[in-house]
C-alpha cells in the first residue's frame, strides 16, 4: 500500500513537472483574462453549431430543434409572459409610498438598461445584479424586499428586459482585483461539479446543449441569461434568474445557495460577460 501511494505520488509530481514545462512561458495558467475567455467561449459554441447565427443563441433550445422552434413561434404570436410583462410595467411605473419610483434608482429611469447588469460596484467591491438592485431600491424607499424567485420580481425584470430587447449585453469587468476575483469565482462555480449527479453547470450547458436530458433539449450557456426572466411551461409560470439557478442546483440534486448569494451573483456576472454583444431577448418562453 505504502509503496503504491509513493509511486503514485512520484508519478503525479512528474506529470506536474511536465505540465509546467508544457505551459507557454509568458502566460501563467491562473491569470484571469475575461477577454480571452469570452473569445474562446463564443468560438466553442460557434464551432459546435456552425449553422446558427450569434443572435440565435439567445433563444436557447428553440434554435436547436425545428419542431420546438415551430411550437415556440406559435406561442410567440401571443406569448405566455404577456401578463407578467404588463404587471411589471404597471408595478414599475407605480410610485412607492414616499412618491419615488423604481426609475429614480436607475440610470435613464431604468428604461433600456438591463443589458448593463450585472455591474461591478467598485465602492462595495461586489457584483450587483438587476434583481439585487431592484430590491435595494425597494428597501431604500421603505418598501419590503420581494422574494427573488417569485412573480413580482419576475414581472419587474420582465418589463426591464423588454425595454432592452435587442440591445447587446454590455457587461464590464473593470481592472480591479476584486472584480476579476468575482468574475473568476463565478467561472469556477460554473465549471465545478456538485450534487448527487455530480454535474456542473457546464456539463449540461456547455458540453451537451442541443442534446437531451431525458427528453428535453438543453439550452446553450451562451445567451442563456439574455432571455431571463422566462415563462417555463414546466413551471406553469414565470421564473427569475435566481429561480433558474436554484432549480438547476436542485435538479442535479445539489443544495441550492440562497438566491443572490455572492456565488450566484458571480456566476451571473461570468455568464453575462461571456455573452457580451449578444442581444437581450427577455422575457423569454421555454419548455
Amino acid at each position, binding site marked *: 500500500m505504502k509503496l503504491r501511494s509513493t509511486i503514485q505520488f512520484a508519478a503525479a509530481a512528474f506529470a506536474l513537472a511536465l505540465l509546467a514545462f508544457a505551459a507557454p512561458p509568458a502566460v501563467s495558467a491562473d491569470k484571469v483574462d475575461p477577454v480571452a475567455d469570452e473569445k474562446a467561449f463564443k468560438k466553442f459554441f460557434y464551432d459546435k453549431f456552425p449553422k446558427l447565427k450569434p443572435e440565435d443563441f439567445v433563444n436557447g433550445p428553440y434554435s436547436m430543434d425545428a*419542431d420546438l422552434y415551430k411550437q415556440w413561434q406559435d406561442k410567440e404570436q401571443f406569448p405566455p409572459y404577456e401578463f407578467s410583462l404588463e404587471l411589471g410595467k404597471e408595478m414599475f411605473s407605480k410610485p412607492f409610498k414616499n412618491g419615488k419610483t423604481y426609475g429614480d434608482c436607475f440610470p435613464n429611469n431604468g428604461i433600456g438598461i438591463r443589458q448593463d447588469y450585472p455591474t461591478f460596484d467598485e465602492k462595495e467591491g461586489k457584483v450587483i445584479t438587476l434583481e439585487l438592485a431592484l430590491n435595494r431600491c425597494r428597501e431604500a424607499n421603505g418598501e419590503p424586499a420581494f422574494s427573488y424567485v417569485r412573480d413580482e420580481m419576475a414581472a419587474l425584470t420582465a418589463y426591464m428586459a423588454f425595454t432592452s430587447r435587442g440591445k447587446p449585453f454590455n457587461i464590464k469587468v473593470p481592472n480591479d482585483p476584486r472584480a476579476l476575483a468575482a468574475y473568476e469565482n463565478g467561472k469556477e462555480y460554473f465549471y465545478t461539479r456538485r450534487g448527487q449527479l455530480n454535474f456542473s453547470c457546464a456539463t449540461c450547458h456547455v458540453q451537451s446543449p442541443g442534446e437531451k436530458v431525458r427528453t428535453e433539449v438543453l439550452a446553450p450557456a451562451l445567451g442563456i441569461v439574455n432571455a431571463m426572466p422566462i415563462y417555463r411551461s414546466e413551471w406553469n409560470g414565470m421564473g427569475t434568474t435566481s429561480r433558474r439557478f436554484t432549480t438547476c442546483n436542485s435538479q442535479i440534486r445539489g443544495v441550492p445557495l440562497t438566491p443572490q448569494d455572492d456565488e450566484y451573483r458571480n456566476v451571473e456576472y461570468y455568464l453575462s460577460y461571456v455573452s457580451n454583444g449578444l442581444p437581450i431577448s427577455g422575457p423569454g418562453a421555454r419548455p
Partner: protein
Amino acid sequence: MTNTDNGFSATRRLILQGAGAVALVGLGNLPFGLAPAFAAANDKYPEEAFKQKSEADAIKSLYGKTAEVSDKVKMDAPEIAENGAVVPVSVTTTLADVTSISFLVAENPVALVASYKIPAGTMPSVANRIKMAKTSNVIVVVEAGGKLYSATKEVKVTVGGCGG
C-alpha cells in the same frame, strides 16, 4: 402537468373494464356540474360531452353521430410536444359549410378539450393551446353540411423535469 397521471389512470382502467357507471358517479361529486346559466344568447354548454372519457363517447354526446376521416381536414400539431401543458394545435379545412370544430385528446382524463361554433361568415380555421396528459392521438372533428369529418395525429408527450 407532472401529476396528471396520479389516480386518474386507475379510474380510466376501471372504466375500460366496464365499471364506467361507478366511476362516473364518483366524478359527479366534483363540482363539474355547476355550469351557470350563461346569459348570452348562445347554445348551451355541452356539459355531458365534457364528462365523457373516450373520444368516441364525447363525439357521440356532442354530435349524436360518428365522423369519417377526411384529408380535407388539415391539422397542425407538433411531433413531440415541448411540454404537455401547452401544446399548440391548429386546424384548417377546405370543406364547405362548416358549423363547428372540436379538439379531442384520446388519452386525456376527459377526451373533449374544446369545441368551437363557427357561424356563417367565420373562417373554418382555429388555433389553440391544449393540455396532454401523455402521448396520445389528437383528433379534430369538423362538422360541415351536417356531416362529421375528422383528422388524427399522434403527438408524443414527455414529462418535464430538466433542461431549458
